[in-house]
């Protein structure tokens, strides 16, 4: 089950990736993965579908809000719903996620509130959500830095004697960073209960994955002593199975695991990017035929788990979420200027307090409240 191939030709495709659903939704047997999803009842399957649809709708709303000037920026996750929802649904409440900036679906699966998705992208806050409440660290913009935080958190969980697991999400570009490689060394040396989820979406802004790697990414982790699995990142069932395999290992005290989820970034890197400058429409079209939601929906309909009414109900819920996100975004109020100086330090800091008072007095000179 673990990835052992070392053929560089596999790099940008999903060759050797564990899969339970063909792109047309046909269920394929995999003796090692099947037991890991055997308990998924219709409700759990529908929940996976629902959260993927909600994620896509939320993501579309983020793009729209940016186009309308309500957000400064948005990093679309269209096409990556299966890896985000599948892996996040496998988590327990006590686990802690260290995401990159593109994991909107993971936030959703962890119970984020409507404002949580947009306030940072609007420029109101650096990090909006209640991290402890939903078990998600602040979204990370420095590429790969969170992999070390996840490893350290896992070392803490290990010292606490708990079965909590830390999860670091990052992309294929991050695998070139020193932090990501150091995290693999630390996690391996200390057998830390951490799972690294690399969403290989083929592109780091304009750079194809072949600039980051001339060797399959899943093939690197074993060199650090970290078992890995290459999984079809557009197959939500396989993502649940792979994540459960990794989480079970961590909870049993067997240390870290690495998942390479082969997927595709259907949209631009961010709303500031123009991917037509660096990639072919044919490539995008080819990946559109492997769409994670269409695939899963076809499977669920064939199984009789999902019908038109259920799909309509999910679509309505998605529209309601989008409306709530839009309302939270447009209704956001900007904090007063004095708050600039708050929370730089946890303990009193006289020079900064003086600077705050000085700036307040300056503003007061104009008779301004803000």
């Amino acid at each position, binding site marked *: 089950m673990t990835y052992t191939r070392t053929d560089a030709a596999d790099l940008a495709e999903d060759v050797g990736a564990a899969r339970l659903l063909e792109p047309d939704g046909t269920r394929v047997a995999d003796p090692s993965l099947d037991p890991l999803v055997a308990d998924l009842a219709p409700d759990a399957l529908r929940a996976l579908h629902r959260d993927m649809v909600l994620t896509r709708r939320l993501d579309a709303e983020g793009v729209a809000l940016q186009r309308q000037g309500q957000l400064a920026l948005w990093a679309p996750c269209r096409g990556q719903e299966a890896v985000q929802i599948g892996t996040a649904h496998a988590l327990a409440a006590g686990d802690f996620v260290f995401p990159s900036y593109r994991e909107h679906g993971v936030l959703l699966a962890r119970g984020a509130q409507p404002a949580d998705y947009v306030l940072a992208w609007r420029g109101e806050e*650096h*990090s909006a959500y209640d991290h402890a409440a939903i078990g998600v660290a*602040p979204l990370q913009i420095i590429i790969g830095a969170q992999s070390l935080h996840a490893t350290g958190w896992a070392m*803490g969980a290990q010292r606490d004697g708990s079965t909590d697991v830390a999860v670091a999400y990052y992309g294929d570009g991050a695998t070139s960073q020193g932090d990501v490689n*150091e995290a693999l060394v630390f996690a391996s040396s200390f057998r830390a209960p951490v799972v690294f989820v690399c969403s290989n979406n083929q592109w780091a802004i304009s750079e194809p994955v072949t600039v980051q790697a001339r060797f399959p990414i899943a093939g690197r982790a074993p060199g650090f002593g970290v078992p890995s699995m290459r999984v079809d990142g557009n197959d939500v069932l396989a993502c649940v199975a792979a994540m459960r395999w990794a989480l079970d290992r961590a909870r049993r005290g067997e240390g870290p695991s690495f998942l390479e989820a082969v997927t595709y970034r259907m949209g631009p890197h961010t709303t500031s990017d123009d991917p037509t400058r660096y990639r072919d429409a044919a490539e995008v079209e080819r990946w559109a035929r492997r769409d994670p939601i269409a695939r899963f929906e076809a499977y669920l309909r064939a199984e009789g788990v999902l019908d038109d009414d259920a799909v309509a109900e999910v679509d309505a819920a998605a529209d309601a979420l989008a409306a709530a996100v839009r309302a939270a975004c447009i209704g956001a109020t900007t904090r007063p200027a004095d708050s600039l100086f708050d929370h730089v330090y946890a303990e009193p800091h006289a020079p900064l307090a003086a600077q705050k008072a000085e700036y307040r007095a300056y503003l007061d000179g104009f008779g301004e409240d803000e």
Partner: protein
Amino acid sequence: MVALTLGAAVNAALAGALADDDRVVLLGEDIGRLGGVFRVTDGLLERFGADRVIDTPLAEAGIVGTAVGLAMRGYRPVVEIQFDGFVYPAFDQIVCQVAKLHYRTNGRVRMPLVIRIPWAGGVGAAEHHSESPEAYFVHTAGLRVVAASTPQDAHLLLRQAIASDDPVIFFEPKRLYHAKGEVDLDLDLADAPPLHLARVAREGTDATIVTYGAQVRVALDAALAAEDEGLSLEVIDLRSLSPLDMSTVAASVRKTGRVVVTHEAAREAGVGAEIVASITERCFAFLEAAPQRVTGHDIPYPPAKLERHHLPDLDRILHAVDLVCDRVPGEVAR
């Protein structure tokens, strides 16, 4: 009170913190079995175990980055960077993560983390082993920066740094690791002067020398020598480089009207520049002469055989004192 070297005082502070709070963990290269390359963590592995005194892989970003994660899990990590010049691989984690997490999260994520750095020159060391990188960290909002100059302060300030809910960069002058002094190991943190206060190391009336770290000793020696020439110098040991206790500095300068700032680090945009700028803002009308800086040259740290020309010694400090006191014929402080 017990007589301890500065290194032993740091060891006692670490042992005390480990004993008092089981959330305190130490991370660093060679800090366990070896007891640290300066033996500062000697005996702590044996006493507190490998779960709390952690010999890490040789990766400074990894050490600081995992300490961030430990802090997010509720631990209070104390990290050792083996030498001053080795801190740069961890710079991103310190500046982008350690310093900013509390601000980024509106106070929801605290970073009670201490980064200990054996620091600065004068020990005849190899390249990258004698650096004074403090200005980088002083310039970074969200960090507190502390420099110990006595065994008592090394013990007290480190205990306070570990107790602080803010991240602290803690500089230990390796030139003074073997210097002995009296230490009150039972000093109550609540009764002690707070972490951010400077200390008047010697009172005087004619001119003020502002300094920190190993340079405090040089300044005190200079004050002793000046006494023979009838000059009374006040020496201020900053202790905290961020925040700076400018109230204590300004009170002294208002009294003497003349000031020399000295540090090993290079001059340009160094801590001394900030101090002199603050003095001119606060005490302009009290100044009798232009403030002088006596610092390392604006060069990379030189080979050990040449470091005596780089480190500001007693004579260079006294020359600057003569300048601010108008005692150099034909020359004025400018």
